[in-house]
């Protein structure tokens, strides 16, 4: 129970359904003092109090479990290391994979519980299939798709059939004070929302070149390649205008040479995505399906092939801002909620065909090693 409205209503529904429910709030900050006054995030003392009050109202026992050390190792350190390697991690996905449905679940099962109930917006019904929430704007199946069959068998998502508005209304009806608590959108361990500052404080400043993808010309300097994301347009501070006067976007980040490569928007498009560490729920491949390439991102039609240690998606229409480190999640469209077929971690994205309007689409002035290098999604990783 994070202290938010979703987990409170999920707990209430589980209790109402007749389960023997115990509320658990995860203490994730190594030093809770630093989080005491933070209004954001999900591990402040205020959130802990909100969760406790919700448990009181629901009428279930409540405990705080200290997962700070494990969270730091498996989520925070991983987050920093992934950025340092030029990838764009999704810490919420990692938290589900390593903390909520691993450390917490294992501990709970050992203590005699049968399942972990969370307030995620996703459906997991009697058929055992993970599906999108009815509330597509709040759907969190993307960050749950990393769960294995064994993890899903011990998971319970009571909110998947409700919209967020319905959840809030029910919280109010149940007398839960968190009914109108604002949603959290930030990464919970970056209290001030300044991801670049957080990374800089851990990785240190590392000045390097901002390079034009086509001419190879050095257009400017950066203070650390980790501060940039694929698709980023603002804040590049380029002194040399583009010859055609059009805006330039970050196309790739290359940690090896500490280079940020920029170019026109059309160069962001890719149509083959290769991913590692697949979790696949048995659908034979190759298969025609939809793929989602970042949290709350649009879906693309694709042919997905899964073999022993990888997943390849051939997109029927190019996608922009595809970042290594993010998850690719495959869905089978279904009237009862799109079904998660599986997921994997994006390692590489490439373009095989020229997009209309692209100039020198396949040319790669920075060198193929760099171009095939790990590109990053536009925008900061969003909390899901």
């Amino acid at each position, binding site marked *: 129970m994070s202290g938010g409205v979703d987990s409170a209503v999920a707990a209430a529904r589980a209790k109402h359904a007749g389960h023997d429910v115990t509320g658990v*709030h995860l*203490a994730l900050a190594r030093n809770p003092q630093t989080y005491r006054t933070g209004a954001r995030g999900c591990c402040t003392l205020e959130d802990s109090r909100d969760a406790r009050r919700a448990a009181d109202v629901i009428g279930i*026992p409540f405990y705080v479990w200290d997962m700070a050390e494990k969270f730091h190792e498996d989520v925070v350190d991983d987050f920093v290391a992934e950025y340092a390697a030029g990838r764009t991690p999704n810490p919420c996905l990692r938290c589900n994979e390593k903390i909520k449905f691993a450390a917490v679940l294992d501990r709970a099962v050992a203590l005699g519980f049968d399942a972990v109930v969370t307030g995620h917006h996703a459906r997991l019904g009697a058929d055992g299939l993970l599906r999108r929430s009815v509330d597509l704007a709040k759907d969190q199946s993307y960050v749950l798709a990393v769960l294995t069959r064994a993890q899903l068998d011990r998971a*319970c998502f009571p909110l998947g059939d409700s919209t967020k508005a319905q959840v809030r209304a029910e919280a109010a009806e149940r007398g839960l004070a968190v009914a109108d608590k604002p949603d959290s959108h930030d990464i919970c361990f970056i209290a001030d929302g300044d991801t670049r500052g957080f990374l800089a404080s851990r990785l240190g400043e590392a000045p390097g070149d901002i390079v034009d993808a086509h001419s190879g010309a050095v257009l400017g300097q950066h203070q650390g390649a980790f501060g940039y994301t694929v698709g980023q347009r603002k804040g590049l501070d380029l002194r040399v205008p583009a010859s055609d006067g059009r805006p330039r976007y970050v196309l790739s980040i290359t940690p090896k040479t500490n280079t940020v490569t920029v170019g026109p928007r059309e160069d962001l498009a890719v149509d083959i995505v290769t991913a590692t560490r697949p979790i696949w729920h048995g659908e034979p491949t190759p298969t025609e399906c939809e793929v989602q390439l970042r949290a709350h991102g649009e879906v693309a039609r694709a042919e997905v092939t899964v073999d022993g240690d990888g997943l390849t998606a051939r997109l029927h229409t190019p996608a922009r801002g595809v970042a290594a480190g993010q998850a690719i999640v495959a869905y089978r469209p279904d009237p009862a909620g799109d079904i998660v077929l599986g997921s994997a971690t994006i390692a590489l994205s490439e373009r095989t065909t020229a997009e209309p309007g692209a100039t020198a689409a396949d040319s790669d002035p920075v060198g193929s090693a760099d171009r095939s290098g790990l590109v990053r999604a536009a925008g900061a990783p969003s909390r899901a």
Partner: protein
Amino acid sequence: MRAGPFGALGISFRVMAYLDHAATTPMLAEALDAYVAAARQIGNPSSLHADGRCARRQVEESRERVAAVLGARPSEVIFTSGGTESDNLATKGIFWARGLPRVVASAVEHHAVLDSVDWLGSHEQATVDWLPVDDLGRVSVPGFAELLAAHGPEIAVVSVQWANNEVGTVQPIAELAALAAQAGIPFHTDAVQAVGQVPVDFAGSGVAALTVSGHKLGGPVGVGALLLGRDVACTPLSHGGGQERDVRSGTLDTPGVVAFAVAVEAATKTQQEYAVRVATLRDDLVSRVRAAVPDAIYNGDPDRRLPANAHFSFPGCEGDALLLLLDAQGVSCSTGSACSAGVAQPSHVLLAMGANDDRARSSLRFTLGHTSTEADVDALLAALPGAVERARRATAWKTPR
């Protein structure tokens, strides 16, 4: 139906066993009666009219009752809001009044002393000397003498608890206080866990200040006292109407004070027979826990110890997992210290006693009280072996998958 630990163990009824009397103990019937009777009456004890005088009389009679059973003069009893305020007042107040740079406290103090003294170090430029303890949690008398020999003239105040709230070790207060008195240093003791459990005599112990709290001995929460020697200067923490010797301003809580005095008197007068009864029960608990969990470590001083305290480390278990499992079966106990976020931190007391982090985290405190019976111990022993087994399995989540 998904079952929790409660259902999964096949227990179909909730056994209630309250084994956390050191956290708070039920009010004595006579204290509750006295509280209700006093609360029905009007009157601010500082008012000059008849109603005020009536309230004042009840407060002063309560002061005399407390003084009489604790070996103090009535004027040495300063009513406060409880243990935390008394500890803050004694440590900070005497430090400020004396104007000397050093403060001495044991490493196993309750947070009310620990954090006050730490604050004096971090905010008031005090030099803090933490008195170490041995593996049983005892402060060394010769060690304290050495410290006094080296720094005596610089020490503003010394604070050593009468008995430890976690492991129950009783400190050699009379010896320590005598050394401090020889050196002319005011000696404060936090006796919150001691009053009603072991004989406590303010004058006889030679201490300059002593903290006592109501709700640990059958009185209400929110009232306590600092016994403060008449010649001990103490700067107030809060200023106002000048009540309580000008050391503790604020309208006195007449019903609280009345009930507190009734409880202190009752707990003190019945202390001996209570201690014999509850120690017998405790010894039974200890031997049965050891039989059920042979590798359990009994922490604290086995001899000079609070009669109602049993404190164990259960190797391979996390205290908070054990607490959850016992709680699910209606057994209430404590892991020792908890921070305000509710996260179980390794006990500073156990760490000071030389325990490693794992042992400190694996500890559980059972404390008995005036309502405890053999049935409470039976309930604990019915639940404990299974809980220990499960808690051991649950530590597996920490190991690499």
